């Protein structure tokens, strides 16, 4: 689908090839695989899910992203059948599944703890679901062999789960969940237990497997990079509600609210009074005596509305001289420099005490850097680089 082809472009949804045409959510004719309608879930006084409407389409790799306690896991457990909504309807291919017990749903789940059966071998773990679907013995064996090949575990087929490494257990869990070729695969923080390198590698394997099998994946994660890497669309959740559902690119570049902008990636937030200036743009008067800054308005606003300009650090240019011909210009002093090797983050202190972060790629070696602590610098960015948010 529209997955990045290399790790260098993690957030770009516009991948190469014909797959870029995959966006059923824009097609009014497309029939969603899953549909949440007015779903609410209460545990006693606590509302875990608050009136959610959500459509997920066939062959999507859909991510539920949010901090812990935002309701993303509850939403997933409702799809698996381990929780039922207090209010509302959930349909799978048009059929209401609220009252269908977990063992009768064409939905399989990969658990955060993997939940492998410790007393069964790798093979027997994968065959567990197949045996319960009334499949012929030969067919089961063939399918198990196929799954083992897919996750490259043929050599460890007769081992028990505690006799293989953590990464291999993760692959067994995936193979077991995919063996029955479910309509929908749920992944609950599937890579949380792996170390960083293995996690990044596995993310691409997941995308690969998702494309090969054509299964719809729904992944729950609190790791925004993971969601950006694997997902065709992301639902950012906050306190039981959905803050925004969009492609990774749009979530990052056109956040709908300050919450989304702040949760996904780093962002500078500058608050002030807004004034619309036409063509979907707005100005923000953020301090007396300095020119207003401008950006694209996320939604129509009126003069005098309180609004926030969200600008990503990598979209800001740092220079010693005042740049010519730009509307968004502020002056400050270098307060701190975080050197990360490939990039450096400059923390620039504006006169009123606001700190703005700017990201600079270190194309030169460290001794040749242009700015250092306490230098007076100018920060600038283009008119369309920032977003003006009212929520």
């Amino acid at each position: 689908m529209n997955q990045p082809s290399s790790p260098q472009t993690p957030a770009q949804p516009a991948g190469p090839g014909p797959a870029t045409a995959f966006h059923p959510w824009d097609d009014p004719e497309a029939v969603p695989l899953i549909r949440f309608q007015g779903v609410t879930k209460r545990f006693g006084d606590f509302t875990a899910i608050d009136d959610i409407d959500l459509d997920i389409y066939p062959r999507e790799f859909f991510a539920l992203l949010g901090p812990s306690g935002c309701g993303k896991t509850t939403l997933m457990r409702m799809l698996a059948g381990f929780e039922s909504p207090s209010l509302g309807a959930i349909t799978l291919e048009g059929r209401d599944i609220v009252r269908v017990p977990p063992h009768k749903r064409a939905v399989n789940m990969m658990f955060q703890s993997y939940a492998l059966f410790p007393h069964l071998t790798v093979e027997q773990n994968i065959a567990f679901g197949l045996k319960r679907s009334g499949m012929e013995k030969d067919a089961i064996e063939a399918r198990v062999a196929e799954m083992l090949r897919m996750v490259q575990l043929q050599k460890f087929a007769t081992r028990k789960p505690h006799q293989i490494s953590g990464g291999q257990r993760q692959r067994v869990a995936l193979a077991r969940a995919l063996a029955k070729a479910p309509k929908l695969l749920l992944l609950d923080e599937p890579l949380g237990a792996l170390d960083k390198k293995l996690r990044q590698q596995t993310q691409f394997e997941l995308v690969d497997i998702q494309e090969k099998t054509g299964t719809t994946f729904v992944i729950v994660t609190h790791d925004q990079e993971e969601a950006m890497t694997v997902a065709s669309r992301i639902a950012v959740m906050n306190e039981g509600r959905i803050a925004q559902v969009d492609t990774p690119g749009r979530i990052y570049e056109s956040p709908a609210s300050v919450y989304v902008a702040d949760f996904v990636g780093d962002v500078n937030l500058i608050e002030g009074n807004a004034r619309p200036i036409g063509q979907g743009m707005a100005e923000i008067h953020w301090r007396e005596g300095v020119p207003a800054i401008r950006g694209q308005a996320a939604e129509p606003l009126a003069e005098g509305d309180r609004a926030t300009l969200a600008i990503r650090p990598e979209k800001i240019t740092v220079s010693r001289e005042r740049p010519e011909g730009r509307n968004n210009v502020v002056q400050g002093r270098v307060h701190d420099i975080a050197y990360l090797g490939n990039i450096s983050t400059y923390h620039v202190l504006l006169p009123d005490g606001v700190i703005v972060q700017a990201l600079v790629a270190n194309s030169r070696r460290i001794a040749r850097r242009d700015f250092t602590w306490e230098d007076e610098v100018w920060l600038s960015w283009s008119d369309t680089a920032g977003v003006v948010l009212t929520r």
Partner: protein
Amino acid sequence: MSRFTWFNATALTFGFAFLYLPMVILIVYSFNESRLVTVWAGFSTKWYGELFRNEQFLDAAWVTLRVAFFSATIATVLGTMAAYVLVRGGRFFGRTLFSGMIYAPLVMPEVITGLSLLLLFISINLDRGIFTIILAHTTFCMAYVSVVVSSRLVSFDRSVEEAALDLGATPFDAFRSVTLPIIMPAVVSGWLLGFTLSLDDLVIASFTAGPAATTLPIQIFSSVRLGVSPEINALSTILIGIVALGVVTASLISKRNLVRQARDARRAIQAGAEDAREARAT
């Protein structure tokens, strides 16, 4: 810390003497030639021979084994079911009351349990015999089994059961093919605990036994009241031998499990390394 001192040596000697001297004396005198328990008259195994010709003792031993086997088995089934419902059943009405009540037999004085069962059997006109002893032993063994099994269930990763359901197992199938094999060690130790408790119970058995069936502890107790005979010594020695065998076997098994765990952990690390090597090669 682990230095040899006279204080340590003395403490060790007295401690173990206190624990084991009575048993050593009992075992030594079981091989005594003389009928008098306190006078040594040379080595002999004749009391063992006498013991195996004593119909009363053999009958009692057979009754005891059957009682222990059946009550431990019934208690294991019921106790496991009770533990499962109390741990997994969620919140239902009266759950706290039930879980309190299942543990009550553990702290109830045995005399009370025995007496109340006796009164019950009399009031419903149940003839006392092997059946009533089994019933009585089942009630208190069940409490022990459910304690052991529920502590295992509490520490058990619930998502393993959910995975079974998710893969199409019915709730009963999930219990049988996933939960039960995983909690099996606890179920087995619950059974063994019940078996041992039933074997050496004297108080409850003497309330609920009838003339038709006597257990070994009752037999030993009543014959000792007429004077200790070397036969009893021989019988006790055999019992000590069986228990010692059980303890040694259990510790060997747990040692073997430790070795196996270490080996599995090593294999897991090797498997991971092998994988990484292959990933680099391709």
